């Protein structure tokens, strides 16, 4: 896919892979990782934002996490263990008050910036505050929604008083006051907004050119707006305070703006410096997979991962004929998941989905299939339901999708659905929109189409950020970006979401998210299609491959090239 328009993945779903059963292998030769060398990162998308306030990451991101330490972070381990949250700058993952509305953190001792000055709790508070400045927008909306009195806060440049919801009683302690119980606050504290920013080094929108490092590497070069990033060791970072980042290579050289097929060509050729190269944003496409799977030595250099992500059909029940549940159910029966999976890259790159929640334990995955249609759809059952709904002679509907070439909401998937629905007597007209146009249409209640392709990725590996934005009736936004596209406002769903958010026992919460997913799924407001699987090549000298279920991608803080 040498396409120019690789879609910008703004939100959580930036990147993903993680070995399902811990099947990641480390590189050949001396398997033990050693310090030294230069790790090359070959990417398609430039790291345009490198300001911790503007980054929208899941768990602190891959490259950003080398420079920014946060209060908590993701566990850098293979598979499901990697979906856990662990302490980073803080001594623990946070101490909640009884109702989970007040969270207290203590910073570790001996934490330093790259210039040797100590990291204080006030710096963490300042880092969060500046993410509220309109010119530094871009991060996840949770802080504004959750912190007391933060709804109208405009950041420290305009409002010198700061946010009262964050207290810093001493230089190592932070106390967060939330306006409602949030048992998953430790997950939020992994995002880069929780990285310390020294106030006297803050240069506003220019800060991203040289952010002050708290992690194992510092930024030496940031050329052409993140197109070429050169990171070198931060001498003031101490492994003693950081149990998560291994930091084997001496230098990390991130090159971007490369065509995705060129990246995969270079990784498979693995010549010269490319032998010590990885990518943090480019998956193997179906064509490349077809080539790689025929070559054993290449196939051994593929990292496979799973990221909490679901591609689905969304309905707007305010638009006829989708107001009729039987029509929605008929479509759910008619869908041919095997051809959709093929369009998404085949069975190695996508797994058919019947649940909205990703098929991972941390999300509370509970298998269910309210409209069992088999692998390739049940056209007869669909016709039966259509007849019941008063469409004996078939039906003509319009399916809206994005034109970006990403194998998820793309024309390929739409045409596969078009072909399957034809067998059930449903004529589908395709409305392909330019990606930006598509996004603004489907997230605006006034222009939302009745029948469209959508996807959702996890802000962190839990059911909460997966179900609440899509199905919580109070999150319907009338004049702004709305994500509850099914316009569901069901009191019993809303109260259950509130009840689960109170839980600080994340396993118990996961079970209830799973049950809630099943209950919502029966309403056929969405038709889950598939969960993507990510496969990525890495160079032949790359060792110590760790792919967690949190990010689903090879973690470059663990990689060694010697």
């Amino acid at each position, binding site marked *: 896919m*040498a396409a*120019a*328009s*690789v*879609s*910008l993945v*703004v*939100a959580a779903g930036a990147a993903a892979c993680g070995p399902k059963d811990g099947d990641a292998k480390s590189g050949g030769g001396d398997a033990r990782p050693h310090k030294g060398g230069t790790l090359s990162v070959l990417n398609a998308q430039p790291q*345009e*934002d490198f300001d911790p306030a503007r980054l*929208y990451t899941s768990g602190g991101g891959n490259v950003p996490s080398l420079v920014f330490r946060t209060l908590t972070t993701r566990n850098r381990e293979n598979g499901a263990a990697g979906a856990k949250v662990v302490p980073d700058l803080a001594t623990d993952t946070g101490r909640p008050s009884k109702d989970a509305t007040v969270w207290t953190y203590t910073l570790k001792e001996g934490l330093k910036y790259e210039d040797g000055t100590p990291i204080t709790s006030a710096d963490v508070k300042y880092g969060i505050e500046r993410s509220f*400045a*309109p*010119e*530094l*927008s*871009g991060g*996840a*909306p949770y802080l*504004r929604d959750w912190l007391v009195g933060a709804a*109208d806060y405009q*950041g420290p*440049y305009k409002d010198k008083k700061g946010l009262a919801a964050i207290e810093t009683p001493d230089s190592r302690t932070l106390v967060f006051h939330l306006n409602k119980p949030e048992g998953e606050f430790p997950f939020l504290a992994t995002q880069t907004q929780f990285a310390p920013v020294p106030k006297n080094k*803050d*240069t*506003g*929108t*220019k800060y991203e050119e040289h952010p002050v490092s708290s992690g194992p590497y510092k930024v030496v070069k940031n*050329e*052409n*707006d993140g*197109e070429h990033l050169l990171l070198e060791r931060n001498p003031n970072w101490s492994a003693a305070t950081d149990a998560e980042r291994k930091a084997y290579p001496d230098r990390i050289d991130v*090159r971007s*703006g*490369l*065509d995705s*097929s*060129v990246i995969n*060509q*270079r990784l*498979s*050729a693995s*010549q*010269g410096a*490319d032998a010590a190269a990885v990518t943090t944003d480019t998956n193997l496409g179906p064509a490349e997979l077809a080539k790689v799977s025929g070559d054993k030595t290449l196939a051994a250099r593929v990292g496979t991962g799973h990221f909490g992500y679901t591609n689905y059909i969304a309905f707007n029940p305010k638009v006829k004929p989708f107001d009729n549940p039987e029509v929605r159910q008929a479509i759910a029966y008619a869908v041919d998941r095997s051809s959709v999976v093929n369009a998404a890259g085949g069975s190695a790159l996508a797994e058919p989905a019947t649940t909205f929640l990703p098929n991972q334990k941390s999300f509370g995955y509970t298998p269910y299939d309210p409209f069992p249609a088999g692998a390739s759809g049940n056209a007869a059952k669909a016709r039966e339901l259509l007849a019941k709904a008063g469409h004996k002679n078939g039906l003509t509907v319009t399916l809206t999708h994005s034109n970006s070439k990403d194998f998820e909401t793309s024309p390929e998937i739409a045409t596969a659905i078009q072909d399957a629905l034809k067998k059930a007597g449903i004529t589908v007209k395709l409305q392909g929109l330019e*990606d*930006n*146009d598509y*996004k*603004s249409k489907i*997230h605006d209640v006034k222009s939302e189409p009745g029948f469209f392709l959508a996807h959702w990725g996890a802000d962190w590996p839990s059911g909460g950020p997966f179900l609440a934005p899509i199905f919580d009736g109070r999150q319907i936004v009338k*004049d*702004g*970006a709305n*994500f509850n596209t099914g316009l569901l406002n069901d009191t019993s769903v809303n109260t259950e979401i509130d009840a689960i958010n109170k839980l600080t026992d994340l396993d118990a919460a996961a079970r209830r998210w799973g049950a809630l997913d099943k209950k919502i799924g029966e309403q056929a407001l969405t038709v889950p299609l598939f969960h993507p699987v990510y496969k990525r090549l890495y160079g032949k000298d790359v060792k110590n491959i760790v792919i967690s279920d949190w990010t689903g991608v090879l973690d470059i803080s663990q990689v060694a090239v010697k």
Partner: protein
Amino acid sequence: MSAFSGLTGFVLRRAVGALATLLALSVIVYVVFYAAPGDVAQITCGPRCSPEQVHQVAQQLRLDDPLHVRYWHFLQGIVAGHDYSTGTSVEHCPAPCLGVSYQSGRQVMDIITAKLPVSLSLVSGAMVLWLVLGVGTGVLSAWRRGRISERVLTAVTLAGTATPVFVIGLVLMIVVCGEFQWLPFPQYVSLTDDPEQWAWNLLLPWLSLALIEAATFARLTRAAMLETLAEDHIRTFRAYGVGERSVVGRHALRGALAPVIALNANNLGSAVGGAVLTETLFGLPGIGQELVHAVDVVDLPVVVGMVLIVGFFVVVANTVADVLFAVADRRVVLA
């Protein structure tokens, strides 16, 4: 007329004309793109911004001002530069200021100056190649007209025009870099950093772009040479027994040079188009790749700036070609 007669007057008139063209170009491009639908503030702010935040961004970007006021401001910026606020500080955008990117907060001129060396390296190197290849092939096929070798050359140049640059480039890359590993996968190295690596890395992109353009020049050179060869004075040379090699190489080629210069200037626009494809395919961080990206994320100031800068080069190239013509052929000026 009398005050500026002769070459100076001609050059001056052309320069004023070029300036007027550029001004009109800027109006057209600005209006076309800024009258486009789509909520720029919403896109800048991110998908989950509240309406208040979107409004704030819109204010900061002056999106509430009417179009002509914004255009005037834009024009002022190009001539005199202007100041703008980043929130923490007031920044100066020096002339020629093409505005500030909504997406990255960087000044468009900075982005262009960062990307321009790459595109200039690509286009200038490829230009040398396509002129040498194109004119050479053209001369050869005019000289060997009617023979088998001419037919082969004609077929090759036709093939060049008929194959998309993205197919040639991709196949070249897979074969040369992937299979045989004769060349590195192209990755831009600055000329000032390492001239050898610069050329080495750009060889393949140059070749891909040049192969396409060379075909056009080969056809032009051949036709122009055949035409000159048919002219009276050439027949006279022949009649006086001047050798064929000298007739073709010295006299006929001179006749073909003027149209080649004209075509080269005129073709710059299409060559830049080819450069967009080449940069995209090889992942070279030039103007073309940046434009494709800016179009993708609807970064209007960058799109407008890039289109204007390319238009600027095309207009300048055409004006220079006109003047070169005038110098070469005094009849144009005297008329």
